[in-house]
């Protein structure tokens, strides 16, 4: 296992009175892909969204325990959420480009960070689009609206937009669930490329996708982390019966 990037210690999360995550302990390695799988409502998305404190937006959420990123507890008072989110990019289930041009979508992050130099922005936009493997498809239409792109392209644009902020971690919440198989394949290939430089955590309903793209797999059920290990191991001989039942589709 490589260096550990994210560690959670007894992370417990409540929505009001309802417990959504129960004492999660996990170590997520750097520059590898970690997939969260499990049935709907098992807490995997909630867990993902607590890693960049997106759950802060929901007033009824209460969190106990620790999430350490590079050894720092991100729920400590002195942590600036805005800076934290710059370090931890997020790609959402539904592609959500802004109603702006392709260029401005990518430049959004750098601009809010105070980069306004046109030359610098152009450079960032090009690198980000290239790294998200969409440059060739959009390089001649950067001033066009991003809403004119296909669903798969939009999602890669959103990944490029995330890359433009130069995060260290990229969280992906079912990034391909709304896409056709070809676009899904492209996203998966992209994930494989991105892990050379980024720590990637992906939530997916699609077990095969988890199998294809991830190095480590965590199986969640009813707010608990049931099993966590190398993807190869989880998908060939999991240790726990529930995991086996879920991945083989025998889940009752």
């Amino acid at each position, binding site marked *: 296992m490589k260096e550990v990037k994210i560690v959670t210690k007894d992370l417990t999360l409540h929505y009001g009175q309802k417990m959504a995550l129960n004492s999660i302990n996990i170590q997520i390695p750097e520059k590898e892909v970690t997939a969260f799988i499990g049935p709907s409502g098992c807490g995997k998305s909630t867990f993902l969204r607590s890693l960049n404190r997106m759950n802060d937006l929901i007033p009824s959420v209460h969190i106990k325990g620790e999430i350490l990123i590079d050894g720092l507890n991100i729920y400590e008072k002195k942590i600036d959420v805005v800076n934290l989110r710059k370090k931890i990019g997020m790609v959402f289930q539904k592609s959500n480009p802004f109603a702006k041009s392709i260029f401005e979508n990518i430049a959004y992050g750098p601009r809010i960070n105070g980069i306004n130099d046109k030359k610098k922005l152009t450079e960032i936009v090009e690198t980000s689009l290239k790294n998200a493997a969409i440059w060739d498809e959009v390089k001649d239409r950067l001033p066009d609206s991003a809403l004119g792109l296909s669903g798969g392209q939009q999602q890669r644009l959103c990944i490029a937009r995330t890359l433009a902020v130069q995060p260290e971690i990229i969280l992906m919440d079912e990034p391909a669930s709304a896409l056709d198989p*070809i676009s899904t*394949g*492209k996203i998966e*290939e992209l994930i*494989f490329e991105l892990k050379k430089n980024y720590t990637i955590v992906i939530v997916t309903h699609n077990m*095969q996708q988890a*199998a*294809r793209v991830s190095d480590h797999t965590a199986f969640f059920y009813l707010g608990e982390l049931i099993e966590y290990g190398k*993807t*190869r191991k989880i*998908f*060939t001989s999991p240790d726990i019966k529930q995991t086996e039942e879920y991945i083989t589709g025998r889940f009752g």
Partner: protein
Amino acid sequence: MERHFELELQKLNKRVNKMGNLVAEQVHNAFDALLRGDTELARLIIEKDRKVDKLDNKIDKLCQSIFALAQPVATDLRLIMSSLKMNNDLERMGDHAVTIAQKIEGISDYPDILAELHMEEIVKMTDLIVNDVITILNTRNTAFVKDIFELALSINEKTHAVTARIIEEMMHKSEVIVVATNLIIVLTAIERLAGYSTNIAESIVFIVDGKIIKHKKKNFDNQEAAAESHIGQGDEPGLDQMLPPISEATPSEG
């Protein structure tokens, strides 16, 4: 679209090819040792079989993880299924090379017996068929598959003929029973080597063309259908095949 999964397939191909080359080398050395009565070389072969077994495990594991993680279909599915089977066949071929190596000592008391029985030819043919099939495995060129089937048929006939002669000898001279039995075991191993070679050839046809020819070689080529009747089964030969009556040594199906 480039697929990172391609890398896994390449790795698998590389390993299967490596396995093929290793087994071909083992077989070749086994024959060399057999013809020269070289018990030292025989010992080396037996030792080296561990390497074959290790590689066999590695390929099995790789196939398992590709099946589990990549959900292969079409060409990819055929490749992995066939790789698994070829790996199994190659491993058995390695075992047969070991069997031959193990029997060398038991034959070495009669240095001239192989020549007497004209076994050099069978050995050379088998060395050739193994070598050829590994070449096909490495190149994925199915153009010469037909030659493999013909060669296997011919080896089959010849081993059965020699086996019949040995049995006859045993009836007259009880003192040769030990060496004769060893020889029959070697011949059986040789026949199996030819049989597995055809299996591998079939697997490669399946990978490349997607055709299953193992139980209908008639469609593939009439001549091979004959070979199939004796050697196409793939697994260990039955008792009747080990010691076949002379009348059945010649193929009857066409």
